[in-house]
């Protein structure tokens, strides 16, 4: 099974250099049916990676560029009048796909964001009198640009909670950037081959569900989530004033799924604390609400999560 994962990785690596964290995050989302929010400045291969992944998986892919004048019907679809048959017919929107890239999601107004996020949760679209189930797998990968404040509509916390992981994409290393520049300059990007089909993906999902989590590790995960709500119980009085709201129960649910996928991607049959540590920031960073005091003092949420995981005893 791990061979299949390695094949996917190597196919994606044909066009994407580095960005292992983002690729792993997308794979975890696919294996756990969780949506992914990717945050990073422009030009870090966010779109390229998603495209490459969909090509390697042989899945349907659509991309929507979110703009301030976008309407819900531009994503979901609408009933349109057919003069030939003198009747209304359904025109499905780009949401009817397997992998949807919602580029710059925070540029669209709240009504469009809500429409998309509702579909993400329900996996069903209602157009006119008819409801349509989205064929699995259905995964939304939304991107947002953190450096702009003008003309953007930040996602509310309740909607952010629907994303399983929030991946922050950083710059490549110097060596990686050299490789990218050489590859683009010589136009030597290889074509991506489809290495799995939907059935294989479903079997991988089933395999992930069989990954064992020891009860002690389960309790450890719950303790980590609880510690974000009551840090003072774990000797973290100093960070209590920085936390307004801790992680929601969705974090616990998603953590149980995600750590299995992490262990699976590492070729393991069981989950260890290191699997939790490697994914905890992506699971929690968009779901913990910091106080204004923390923002004023320039405290980073990732630092707080690190302090929490270091304070909780490891099983």
């Amino acid at each position: 099974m791990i061979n299949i994962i390695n094949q996917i990785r190597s196919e994606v690596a044909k066009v994407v250099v580095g960005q292992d964290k983002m690729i792993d995050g997308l794979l975890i989302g696919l294996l756990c049916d969780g949506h992914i929010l990717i945050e990073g400045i422009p030009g870090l291969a966010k779109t390229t990676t998603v495209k490459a992944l969909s090509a390697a998986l042989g899945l349907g892919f659509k991309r929507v560029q979110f703009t301030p004048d976008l309407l819900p019907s531009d994503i979901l679809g609408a009933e349109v009048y057919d003069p030939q048959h003198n009747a209304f017919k359904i025109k499905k929107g780009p949401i009817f796909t397997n992998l949807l890239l919602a580029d710059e999601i925070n540029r669209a107004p709240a009504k469009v964001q809500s429409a998309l996020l509702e579909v993400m949760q329900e996996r069903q679209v209602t157009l006119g009198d008819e409801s349509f189930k989205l064929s699995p797998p259905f995964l939304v990968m939304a991107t947002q640009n953190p450096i702009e404040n003008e003309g953007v509509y930040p996602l509310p916390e309740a909607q952010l909670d629907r994303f399983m992981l929030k991946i922050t994409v950083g710059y490549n290393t110097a060596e990686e950037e050299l490789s990218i520049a050489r590859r683009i300059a010589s136009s030597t990007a290889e074509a991506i081959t489809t290495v799995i089909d939907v059935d294989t993906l479903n079997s991988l999902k089933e395999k992930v569900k069989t990954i064992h989590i020891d009860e002690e590790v389960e309790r450890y995960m719950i303790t980590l989530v609880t510690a974000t709500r009551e840090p003072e119980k774990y000797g973290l009085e100093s960070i209590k004033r920085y936390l307004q709201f801790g992680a929601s129960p969705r974090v616990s649910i998603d953590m149980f799924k995600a750590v299995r996928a992490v262990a699976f991607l590492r070729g393991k049959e069981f989950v260890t604390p290191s699997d939790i540590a490697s994914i905890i920031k992506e699971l929690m960073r968009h779901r913990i609400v910091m106080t204004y005091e923390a923002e004023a003092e320039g405290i980073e949420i990732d630092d707080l999560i690190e302090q929490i995981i270091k304070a909780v005893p490891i099983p």
Partner: protein
Amino acid sequence: MRRSLGRIIVWFVIFHTTLWGMSYRWSVLESPQSLRVGQSGVIRYACTFEGSAAEYSTKLKLVDTPQYGTSVLSQNTRVVQGKRIDTIDLLITPKTAGVIEIRMKADVRYTSPGAVENTVLGRDNLSRDDISEEEVALPGISIRSQENSAALTGNITMEAQVDRTSVRAHEPLHLSVIIKGSGNLEQFIPYELNISGVKVFSEPAQKLFTPSSDGVEGEIRQEFALVAEKSYVIPTFKLSVFDTAHNRAVLLQSAPIQVEINEGYDPASLLDAPDLTDMSTLKHYAYNIGLVILGVIFGEAGRVLWKRRPRRKTAQFWERSKNTKELILMLALSGDKRYEAIITALESNTISLSEAKKKLSTLTTEKEVKA
């Protein structure tokens, strides 16, 4: 000037006015009969009210004509036996000779109690009707003005001082011309000093006056700095003054001052020529040059050594881990895929903590090093 001190001219001229219900009377208590041109004299006016007249104020209207100029020397108010008396001393200075007829006017202002209250309370609704003003003509006076050709008039002295009378060539000598006394000192025209072969640096005249019955009282000081190569004489300073104390014209003049110029410094004579035949001089030169060269050598050596100094290895984040679990956690938190093999090895207990750290220390990438 002949001042009529013994003769107090009492002018009960009678400007008996009834204004806003209060009577008052202007009179002249004192006046000079004759003055010289440029000489100042005092005319004392008085305004006597019937009561305390707290709501009244008086103000003399000053005039400046081609024949004479006026200014107020002093003004005071007192209440005698329930009657208010305003006394104003007016300084008058004739500008031309002849008989001068003086016709002064004054303003008498009445402020209503309501207006006073408004002002005290800080109200800003003061209306025009709250204050009433009336112009009153004062008793006329005739003064005989006599010719005066002197530059200044009054009780005045003049002297010229130098800080020393013997200086070296190009060394400055300071000269002060001081005019003191009382009179029309403000009319003084500063001296212009020119001496052949002498550079003269002058400052604007400094004047320090206070008003007096003669006009002003005080001092005028004019400073000069004189620089020359040869001896010279500071000429006499002259000032024609009409002496009011003795009622006669005098010519004040300073004595000429002889200034001796001695030989100045020659720059070349201040330095000893180096004796290059003297070994001690050459040794001294060599010592100084050697010091400079040594300084450069030591400086360069220090710079090189500082550049090559052994630097402490940058602490890596995983070095702080105390046990395997902690190390695994730290490596996993870093999110670096490069550590996965070591994490797996640690989890399967195939390597110890120290072995893992040893392996980690061999990994040297920019991602691994965290301050």
